[in-house]
């Protein structure tokens, strides 16, 4: 249970970063933290106490094993997170070229 609460805390740290920070790079870091927290949460769901990796071998019998499916899903999710981060970082660099600042309170040509 403690682990889940810590995971939630990590998620909230990320969300705080996204919502409250003014620097574009810090917002992106917050997004990254959020993604780590949700991946961690999915892995935690699949964990069993004293479980081992689900690899079949000929001469041994597996009694307790962790659920392998979320591990595969989280790999996909990490790749998606990487794509989002790369895209957002490149947009942030172009924004810096245009506006000369990373501060979102000064980047507001769109309104209405």
């Amino acid at each position, binding site marked *: 249970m403690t682990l889940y609460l810590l995971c939630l805390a990590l998620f909230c740290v990320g969300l705080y970063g996204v919502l409250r920070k003014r620097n574009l790079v810090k917002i992106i870091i917050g997004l990254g933290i959020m993604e780590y927290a*949700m991946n961690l*949460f999915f892995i935690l769901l699949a964990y069993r106490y004293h479980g081992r990796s689900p690899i079949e071998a000929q001469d041994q019998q597996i009694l307790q094993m962790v659920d392998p499916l979320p591990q595969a899903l989280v790999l996909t999710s990490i790749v998606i997170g990487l794509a989002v981060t790369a*895209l957002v970082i490149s947009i942030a660099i172009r*924004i810096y070229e245009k506006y000369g600042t990373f501060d979102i309170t000064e980047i507001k*040509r769109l309104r*209405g």
Partner: protein
Amino acid sequence: MPGANIIPLFVIIPLFTAFFISLIGRFIKSTYVDIVSGLSSFLLLIFSFWGLAILGRCPETALVYKIGGWLPPFGICMVLDGLSNFMLVTVNIIAFLVVIYSFNYMEKYTDKPKFYTLFFLMLTGMNGVIVTGDLFNLFVFLEIASISSYALVAFGTEAEELEASFKYAIMGSVASAFIFIGIAFLYGFTSTLNMADMARVLSAKPSNWAVPFVSVLFLMGFGLKSALVPFHAWLPDAHSSAPASISAMLSGVLIKTLGVYALARIFFNVIGASGTVLSVLMFLGALSMLVAVILALSQWDLKRLLAYHSISQIGYVVLGIGLGTPLGILGGLFHLFNHSIFKSLLFLNSGAIDYSARTRDLREMSGLRKKLPVTAGTNLIASMSIAGIPPLNGFFSKLIIILACVQKGHIGYALAAVIASVLTLASFMKVQKFAFLGPLKEKYQAIKEVPPAMKFAMVSLATICILGGLLLLPSFSFFLNNAVNVLSDGRDYALAVFGAVLK
């Protein structure tokens, strides 16, 4: 089942086209790139109509394709039922016409092959979301469509476009995070990811706190993707900054596929729509309808005005679906189809004005009817259609939604729908007055009507607007009724899918 073999093609064709164009695009002339993209999207359109024919002929209500031959609870499957087919036809009509339109329109941007690559990746994601029968696979396709749309919004790389794209990307990623956590919870609760199997497991289990919690997460996530009112802040920026053909795709089909379709599919067919969720959906729909149309009234930027109207019209769709009665769902889905037609047309019109007169500000333009007759004519049809003037398609879907509200006893929501419709009319009269009527300004004496490909796309969409009401006639009504049946059957979706698997 040989008919099911066409289902993966809806993902394979656009994905292959995207790959092919990005590989050879820089070595061939841009005319050939246009031809390849046009052919590919035309092929998708034909396949989506063919799917309609196959589904009409076979006795089951759903077709299932098992990827790699694995049986559904273990492998990923793709499902084609009435609702998927309805959405596929809608998406691919718009995609085909937008590709035709882009032949000329995208010439002012430098890199056409990259545009088509991103466009077809977005189409892959949307078609994938529609046909998939697996919840995690839905998330993956949703992210493919979202990421390519973030990039497409920033395609012009001007300051405003980058700013809008950044905002959209951050909001979209937060939405995806909520959806992902929702999926993780559902997996932990049911130990399966197949949507049909999940519906079966959930209806067998006693209800507990997990289902309402997951509902809230999905409501937030998909609400952000479909820009319902408390979550709408990104939409006016993103949709008005993108190139016009992309705005047409984003407003026309992306928010519906990723938002409304996924929301309806998960709530009705997987989780099972409870009364609470439905009343929240109705409330959000009515709120979006009213708030967005009031915000739209004061806009002077044509594309931003249209973007606010998208939020308002999505409100109608969500209100209709949220009623939960077959009549309400019929109205909601019909309005979804109609809105994707006339809103794409309006955005293409704004692109045509931008192409010829180089302005988006309503105060700048005046009397364009004399110089742009085709644009003005199609825009008049689309404006009347969105405002709900009788013979056009928008009237029938709004009428059905209002009737369904009255039938279920929600007089207040019916009144809200009428008021929003009147305000929409007011707002589009403003567009007509400032853009097309009045004296022609001196600086617009030399402008010319847009090239034939753009005219073709706009005239086709206007024709569908005029003929759209015919979909309610008995001989065509199977198209909508099959989609309505899927949603109103609720968790019997599982029976339909497993029945098709065992065949």
